[in-house]
């Protein structure tokens, strides 16, 4: 099977869907001429023209609001938010308008829009361009949140997002744009709410989102050398969340670590750990562990930045503690 980059996979997904459905258009800053700073959308304006690939001024609240209105009135907009950190600028349009319109209109209006943006630190972009803010929107009922972990996932999830009748926020890890993975030529979609078990194991469950899936897989490799079988699961979408797959895995392994690049406090890791605790408590032989980003603004210093995010070594360290029964007193 051919291998393509995550950038290319997203580009293909959008292009294929735009060819299929003329109601789809895309707008954002530097999306047409520049093809985004990450070159994800290169070539689209040439194929679809400036009326369907729109460069906007630097005005996130404005174009996000326009997109909500367009979606309510029959279009299917894709909004490109250059950095996930800018999501704070569109919070009202996204959380108060897009997320609630279907409910507030008694089901008469839908907002089938996709907000594609990114997350991820260690790109030396400093505190305002390195955050992983998916937990903010996952908290709002009415929004769906997808977190692709590879080129294959990115393409399949993007196509599902575009076809969804609800507002979907899709977070790509900006460090993975050049990562290649096998992606079939044929069309495929990845349904929301179906976790992917990447590796089976019986000793501990490692649940990772986005690029943390790779971190978990690397940790599982290291653990395997020590004879420990880790199961690695990618939930793919955190809203909706495939609880059953996670719970069944933990029932089997009795232990779990949840790894996510959002800040650890009040984040995705806590939410997933809590659900496992509620629904698999009597199967647990160790406390469910969370590994998120350190609760600090992401440092600009590369040396400091690197220690704020979960690494395979830290996952291994926590996994061994869980298996040896050394997690007493929150150690």
């Amino acid at each position, binding site marked *: 099977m051919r291998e393509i980059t995550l950038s290319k996979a997203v580009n293909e997904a959008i292009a294929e869907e735009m060819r299929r459905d003329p109601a789809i258009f895309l707008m954002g800053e530097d999306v047409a001429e520049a093809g985004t700073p990450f070159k994800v959308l290169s070539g689209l304006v040439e194929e679809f023209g400036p009326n369907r690939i729109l460069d906007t001024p630097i005005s996130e609240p404005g174009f996000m609001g326009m997109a909500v209105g367009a979606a309510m009135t029959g279009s299917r907009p894709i909004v490109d938010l250059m950095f996930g950190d800018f999501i704070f600028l569109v919070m009202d349009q996204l959380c108060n308008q897009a997320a609630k319109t279907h409910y507030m209109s008694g089901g008469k209006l839908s907002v089938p829009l996709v907000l594609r943006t990114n997350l991820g630190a260690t790109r030396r972009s400093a505190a305002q361009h390195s955050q992983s803010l998916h937990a903010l929107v996952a908290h709002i009922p009415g929004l769906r949140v997808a977190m692709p972990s590879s080129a294959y996932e990115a393409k399949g999830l993007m196509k599902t997002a575009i076809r969804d009748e609800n507002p979907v926020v899709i977070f790509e890890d900006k460090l993975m744009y050049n990562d290649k993975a096998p992606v079939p030529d044929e069309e495929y979609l990845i349904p929301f709410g179906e976790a992917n078990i990447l590796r089976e194991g019986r000793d501990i469950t490692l649940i990772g989102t986005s690029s943390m899936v790779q971190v978990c897989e690397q940790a599982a490799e290291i653990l395997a050398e020590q004879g420990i079988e880790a199961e690695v699961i990618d939930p793919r979408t955190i809203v909706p969340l495939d609880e059953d797959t996670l719970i069944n895995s933990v029932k089997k392994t009795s232990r779990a670590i949840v790894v996510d690049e959002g800040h650890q406090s009040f984040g995705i890791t806590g939410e997933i750990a809590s659900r496992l605790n509620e629904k698999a408590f009597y199967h647990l032989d160790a406390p469910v562990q969370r590994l998120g980003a350190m609760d600090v603004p992401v440092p600009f210093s590369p040396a400091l930045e690197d220690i704020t995010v979960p690494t395979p070594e830290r996952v291994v360290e926590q996994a061994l503690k869980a298996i040896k029964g050394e997690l*007493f007193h929150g150690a």
Partner: protein
Amino acid sequence: MAHEVIMPALGMAQDTGLIVSWLKNEGDKISAGDAIMEVETDKATMEVEAEASGFLTNVRAKAGEDVPVGDVVAYISESADEVVEGGEKPKAAAAKDEPAPAEEAPKAQAEPAKPEPAPAKEVSVTPANTGDKILASPKAKKLAFEEGLDIAQLAAKGVPQPYHVKDLEQLRGAQGVGTSTVSGPQTFHIGASVPRKKLDAFKDWFKTDHQTKIENRSIWLGFATSAFRAVLEATEKDVCVLSSEAGGYLSYLNADRRKLVEIAPSESNAAPNFILRDLTETAIDMVQASAAVCPTLSIARSKKAFVVSLAYQSDQLSDDQALQFVAEFTARLNEPLRHLL
């Protein structure tokens, strides 16, 4: 009544324990849970707690003495100057002091069950540096419960907490084989037999009068629930009985508040107050059940009598309550009309 203080088994291969010091003096007023003596084994020194409240009396072993596991080293009595005679079977001695249960026929006797694996009833053992609560993972606790393993034994052996599933391995091999293990609360049994004559007459009368037969089980359920309620003075509360039948357990809530012929299982999930076993259709005429979950009342049948047996643990019923329960129940069997009053 006086409670024995026994040299506990703190280790698997331990024959004796050295009394390092008495932490209470003879005549001291003590409360259940107070550390009363310090005991040294080959591994560790531990404090032994009083199981009962009262006064420390009849101290038989001094500090510095090496005492065989299981030996009585002192008593806890209700008054400061009580002298316990003999002391081989304090339970039996105490039972004689109880008011004779009910009138004529039912003869109920209380006897202590054979000192099961261990003398642990009178002591609770905790490693010196941890609290009373034993820390174990939810899965370890669940498995231990399902397999009937006693996690407290790990603490007694000095295995560091918290316990995980892998630690249970140490118990799986040990239990059952162990000669000096520390187990959970001891189970006591009370037995009684009641002539069948009057109950049979009552059933016959009912049958001719009402053209319906009353099931034995309904009688047990109705009478036992009513007796239990009387003893516990639980007029306002629900009394729930788990009846062992058809290969499982059925729950009966407040069976005494229904007519005998209308007693039926309920959907209740309430915690059972006791378990009822009807053995009258079997050849079993003597049973010493465990009371691991709650008190268990068994009714068997001999040639001319119903043989009633109650198993209970001290944290479920006091000796007085247990005796009264059996007395109330057997009184109803002996004079069924009592139930209707």
